[in-house]
């Protein structure tokens, strides 16, 4: 029976095991540095906000794996891979042989190397431990979050929901600049500020100030001190590649993989946030599941190829409706359709290229997000519905329009002759053709 060893039990690994455990004939060993099974990391924010419990976000616990004959080595970090011997060695020291190895070590949060970043009370926002640390704050205590991206804002909103006095410090000019354009970012900022979260954009941090080895405040480079009981850095992730690098696998920003999710060693696959595929690294869950599916196929000897597809983002902050998908950078061959309703706090921007939707940003009303996402993924030609596309699928088949309704279709209708602009027998700028057509019409 071939041995499959999987390092890491995050969401990608969980999906992979699910697939592999239904295929008979494999012995699976699952290492996880965290002393627990697989949980839905995306749902940590609702846990932080008190809207869900940890129990509710567990997707595959130890019992699940054991039922499927998986050997779980939770709480044990893998220390080395011996590609020659085809073994993996964990902290407990006994090498575990593999026929196939899947590295799913995920990513590490990036900690800004500010002076004082190692003080107690300076945390990232990555796992349940970080979440619990934030949850331990009492109402009225102060927290600073560095990073106004998806995770940072979820952390801020979650703590704020618990009564914590939160300030977000963001280096860029507007929040969530990777997912939102300036207009939507500003709407989001207004929204958060109106809830009582302080937001400082275009703001650089200089130093973490401490007292008795514990964080006391964040010093900004403009000299302002932001007192805090907890400092959360949520400024991005780095693929966790140390183990793979040590094993001599080819590296880019992450572990380089081909479309079959194989690393430079065909017996070693990698999936999840630790990989780099076609120059891309990954932070959202949808492509990770795709990778797990492809990896399972590859291991089972079936043809499959991973293709990165458009992903959509939603911010999981209750009451904030925000959606972002695709590419929305400005470019000469791109066209915008923009809807703004400042009173209702709604903003939508669609980015078009060659009559196809390539990006969508929405704020305040994201009901049509999935539909837009579909249009982007399917590269649907939207020229026929361009007038209403921003209003969503509910208007595709809406009442037919015609500029002639201004002037009595009923009059124009006499004799049932074509008289509307769209079926008129002639087009502007083609008088000769038009005359011929009109003559034909008359003859008829």
């Amino acid at each position, binding site marked *: 029976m071939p041995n499959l060893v999987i390092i890491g039990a995050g969401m990608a690994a969980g999906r992979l095991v699910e697939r592999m455990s239904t295929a008979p004939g494999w012995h699976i060993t699952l290492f996880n540095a965290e002393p627990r099974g697989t949980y839905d990391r995306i749902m940590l924010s609702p846990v932080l906000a008190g809207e869900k419990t940890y129990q509710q976000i567990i997707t595959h616990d130890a019992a699940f794996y054991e039922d499927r004959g998986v050997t779980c080595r939770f709480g044990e970090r893998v220390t080395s891979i011996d590609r020659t011997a085809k073994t993996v060695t964990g902290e407990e020291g006994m090498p575990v042989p593999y026929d196939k190895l899947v590295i799913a070590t995920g990513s590490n949060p990036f900690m800004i190397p500010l002076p004082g970043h190692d003080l107690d009370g300076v945390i990232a926002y990555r796992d349940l431990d970080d979440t619990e640390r934030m949850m331990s704050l009492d109402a009225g205590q102060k927290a600073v979050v560095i990073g106004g991206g998806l995770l940072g804002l979820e952390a801020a909103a979650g703590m704020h929901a618990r009564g914590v006095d939160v300030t977000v410090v963001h280096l860029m000019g507007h929040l969530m600049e990777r997912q939102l354009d300036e207009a939507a970012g500003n709407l989001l900022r207004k929204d958060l500020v109106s809830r009582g979260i302080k937001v400082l954009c275009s703001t650089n941090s200089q130093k973490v100030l401490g007292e008795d080895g514990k964080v006391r405040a964040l010093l900004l480079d403009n000299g302002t001190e932001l007192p805090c009981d907890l400092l959360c850095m949520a400024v991005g992730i780095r693929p966790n590649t140390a183990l793979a690098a040590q094993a001599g696998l080819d590296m880019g920003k992450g572990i380089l993989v081909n479309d079959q999710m194989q690393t430079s060693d065909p017996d070693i696959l990698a999936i999840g946030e630790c990989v780099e595929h076609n120059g891309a690294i990954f932070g959202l869950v949808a492509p990770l599941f795709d990778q797990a599916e492809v990896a399972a196929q590859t291991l089972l000897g079936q043809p499959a190829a991973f293709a990165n597809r458009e992903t959509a983002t939603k911010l999981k902050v209750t009451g904030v409706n925000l959606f972002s998908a695709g590419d929305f950078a400005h470019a000469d061959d791109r*066209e*915008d*359709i*923009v*809807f*703004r*309703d*400042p*009173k*209702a706090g*709604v903003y939508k921007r669609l980015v078009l290229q060659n009559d196809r939707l390539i990006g969508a940003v929405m704020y305040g009303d994201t009901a049509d997000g999935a539909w837009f996402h579909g249009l982007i993924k399917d590269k649907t030609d939207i020229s026929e519905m*361009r*007038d*209403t596309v*921003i*209003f969503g*699928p*509910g*208007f*595709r*088949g*809406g*009442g*037919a*329009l*015609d*500029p*002639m*309704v*201004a*002037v*009595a*279709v*009923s*009059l*124009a*209708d*006499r*004799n*049932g*002759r074509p*008289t*509307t*602009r769209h079926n*008129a*027998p*002639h*087009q*502007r*700028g*083609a*008088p000769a053709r*038009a*005359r011929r*057509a*009109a*003559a034909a*019409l*008359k003859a008829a």
Partner: protein
Amino acid sequence: MDGTGTPSIRSTCPYCGVGCGVILRPDGVGGLTVDGDPDHPANKGALCSKGLALGETLSLDDRLLAPKMHGTQTTWDHALTTVANRFSEAIAEHGPDSVAFYVSGQLLTEDYYVANKLMKGFIGSANIDTNSRLCMASTVAGHKRAFGTDTVPGTYEDLDEADMVVLVGSNLAWCHPVLYKRLAAARAARGTKVVVIDPRRTATCDIADTHLKINPGSDVALFNGLLKHLANTGTLDQSFIDAHTEGFADALTMAEADTCRATGLPASQVAPFFMQFARTEKVITIFSQGVNQSTSGTDKVNAILNCHLATGRIGKPGMGPFSVTGQPNAMGGRETGGLANMLAAHLDLENPGHRSAVQQFWEAPAVAQSPGLKAIDLFDAVHDGQIKALWIACTNPAVSLPNAGKVREVIEKCPFTVVSDVTDQTDTARLADIVLPATGWGEKDGTVTNSDRTISRQRGALPAPGQARGDWDIFAEVGRRMGWHAAFDYASPAEVFREHAALSRIAGSFGRDFDISGLADITDAEYDSLAPVRWPVTATRTGGRFFGDGKFFTPSGKGRFVAVKSRVPAATPCEQYPFRLNSGRVRDQWHTMTRTAKTPRLSRHLAEPFLQIHPSDAATLGLQPADLVRVTSPSGTAILRALITPDAAEGAPFAPMHWTGETAPAARIGPVIAAATDPVSGQPETKAATVALERFAPAWYGFAVATADLSPDCAYWARMRTDAGWRAELAGTETPDCWTSFAHALFGLDTAPATVTDPRRALTRLAFWQDDILQAALFISAEPVEVARDFVADALGTPAKGLLAARPGEDMPDPGPTVCSCMSVGRNTLIDAIHASPGAALDQICTATGAGTSCGSCRPEVADLLQKYALREAAE
């Protein structure tokens, strides 16, 4: 009172010359419900879309409630004294012909009588003319030439008995819908043959067996050809000709010299019409503005009358020539003499015997000796400085007269102008020195005479708003203040009417037609309860037809043939102005829309002025449907929406006349029409201007709706009422830097709108909500704007989520543009109904949707849809 305890008041509709009876019931909160009067002989309970919507036109929001001098409110006393003094001064300094009245076919007979008496008998000038000049003058002149008097020979009942009805220059279906309905019913019952003679295909053609699409202005050639045919085929009534007429030989000779070629019709179309006319004894020729509004209008009338005289088909049941008038009281105006070339009671200004009899009756100082200035000449005289004081009552010449641009300047230049009207929000009233608040329909008391000589009471059912007074009262008061106390000492319209009826006794004594002396002694109570009565009303005779007995009102007592020769319209198409512009009415609007534009229901049918143009002309011009077209004539220019349809005559596009500076300043047709007039009647030729057409290419097109009135500032706009506010079409030559600022100025708002922009397509949409209720929206596009207009207009005052999509969502059917105004049934609803019940007849579709079940004016349009979409179904 009726059974419900609500007081019900019988009156008449203020629109066209059919003169339908209505029953008014005040709703107790300033409004009225309006129903057709089943007992009125003109309509027997039927009403058209305009009549049915009368109750919606009574809002006081633009009413003039107190006199104003130079825009500032003043007292009646001050205003009237000023008017009297300025007129008296002008007369003292420059003579009686230095003052003039320009009045209206909307005035009641009593109003007309007092104004005419004041001008012709006491001021001593005949400078009183009326907008009937634009409408009926050629018929008046033609009648007088042939009959000796302005007499309509027949009655509406004749329509029920005719075997053939020829409609010349009459879109009866839209302009006289209740008569049209009557004709359609007769046709259904007895197979009446209907012939429409009109350069364009109109809704009336829906019941036509034959449509002769003649060249504009060529009616004389056609009827001369008919006369020739009648002579050649021995269809003449030689004994009638010999015994009761004169001038036949000359008329026939002239006709023989004429040729039908001018009509542009092939013999294959003309011959069957001639033959049918020749062999049908009971034939009626209905004629209207297509005949009258022409430089050969009077000759056209006589060419028609000649054919009826030659066959003796006049004044007998089911036959005769029949002029249908455009205004409710054009006939009453003619009866009182309210035209510059008439005296009073169908008596002649030129006749010294008539003059002295009237002078004696009035105990007047100086009866006018010679005809006064007819409408066009009158405003020319103002221009020349001859008129020092001008009184315009109840009409809007700055819009409606030809060369209206000049008329506007002229009024502004006149040293002293008084306007009495229900509103000062008209293009004309804005130019006046003094505006006087007059009572309007629903408030006024008096009588009107319809197209078949039926005199009916118009009765007030509502109190006069503010300080408004009846027109008769205003004229009488000025007469008293000018020093003629006894002559203008009227206390009520009944008193005026009795005097008018008594005066007509003189006409009777001269052997004239208009004699209602039988009503001269009616009491106030009898006047109040006067039932519709057809004149004459004398001790010996009431109503009936004229001329069947061969007795005419000419000096010889014989009917006169008039030798006429066809003439082309005054302006000839040339390289610079190659098109001929036809003009006229649309179904749901009336004149300059001062009343009809108040009702959103009516404004839905055609919410924008347009140019109906033939596809081949459009192709030549590179026009697409919904483009804007610039219409240019030597006298002015207008911008109109292109409505491309084979209904229009090739080379002769059509534009409606209704839009004004208030509703669509760039789309006024008046300024485009040159002031050429008929040499006999003085009636302007408003259907044959020569024009150049070109596509008007604005930088942007717009559509706007707003709960409050909007003030567009752009090259083209046209606005209309909606249920909850206003809608407007817009177009501009320069794109504003900021559409939000433009919208703020347009709507008078300063809040932040919701917007959609698609810069590549120059598409911008803005909408304003207040407390989640839609206040205003603006749709801008580089192309004619695509919006579900009725849907958007109806969204005003509602939450209207998703409005900027400019159309209803999938789950909300769009009823489409309104076809049936009464029942608010849209085109899409009708098409759906037609699809849903294949093979259904018109009645079934109407019953299923409600369309055409009220006034029935839209039934031709429903029939068209049925034909089109039912056929399509069959073809699939």
